[in-house]
């Protein structure tokens, strides 16, 4: 019971940071989603020790471990778009797979190349 109330309290705290992010995005008319800005704010607050990690740990860990739960209602929405993936729509799947392959190759090779140069310098 104590753990459950702790988790709830932490989630309310995260929600407040989310609202803060939304609020800043609205005031300054930024293109970044309020939730992503909220994540950056929380990361900076943790790094600078303004917020101790123990204050939010249980709830945050619970949310991250169960990330999939939060977007189930959205994926169920596919129920209204079944006909989209028949016929020509099949190509959308191929496009995503091909583009994903290109992302793995370019990002992977870039970091590997920089890593190898770094490691050679150290030798």
């Amino acid at each position, binding site marked *: 019971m104590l753990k459950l109330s702790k988790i709830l309290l932490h989630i309310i705290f995260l*929600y407040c940071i*989310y609202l803060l992010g939304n609020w800043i995005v609205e005031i300054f008319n930024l293109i970044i989603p309020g939730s992503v800005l909220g994540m950056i704010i929380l990361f900076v607050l943790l790094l600078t020790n303004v917020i101790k990690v123990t204050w939010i740990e249980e709830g945050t860990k619970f949310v*991250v471990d169960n990330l999939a*739960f*939060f*977007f*189930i209602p959205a994926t169920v929405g596919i129920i209204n778009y079944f006909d989209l993936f028949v016929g020509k729509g099949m190509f959308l799947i191929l496009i995503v797979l091909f*583009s994903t392959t290109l992302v*793995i190759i370019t990002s992977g090779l870039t970091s590997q190349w920089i890593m190898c140069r770094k490691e050679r310098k150290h030798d």
Partner: protein
Amino acid sequence: MINFIIGFLSIVSTYGVYLLSKKVHQKWDFTFTFPVILSTVIIILILLVMRIPYEIYMIGGKWINELLGVAVVALAYPLYQQRENLKKLALPIISGTLIGAAVGVSTGTLFAKVMGFEDILIHSLSPKSVTAPVAMSVADTVGGLPTLAVVFVMIAGFGGVFLKPIIYKVCRINHVVGKGVGIGSASHAIGTASALESSLLEGSVSTIAMVVSAVVVSLITPGLVNVLL
């Protein structure tokens, strides 16, 4: 009052189905038993069999949707846990992730445009490389449909995990940092889960790449889509 009961029932049953799917996945570790896939299939079947429209289910579902923002904010925690690796490997991880984010958004958008798909589909497909809650919000900003965005995110996630061994072999990506950045930038949380199975360091690198990629993609997508369409 009736709305409150329907909402409560759909939240509780969604969580129940999710817990059940998690148990099933722990027992039989197949791609199609991934909790999010299994839960979605089960709930769709329930809705179809009981003839419940999606809109009714969403009376409760929208409250879970509302918490997606919280889920994104929470990603600061794994990034914070990886702060030492982030400091040590900042240059290779961030450069790779930047390039991957730009390649992912622009190639997806361009191919879909060349094939003559409608704008609303292209806009839903553009942010497919990042974790679902972020992709939904980005798709919404640029004029796509969050629901479709999640479907493309899933395809990118599972597709990347499936193709990864061949790509690593053909392109000689064998350094743990290269592997982690590749799968984290392309296949977000699903890719990170598979990287963690290879090694702790690959998983950590993938975690950083996934979170950095979420920030970069949400920043560049509106501009890139504008230029390309």
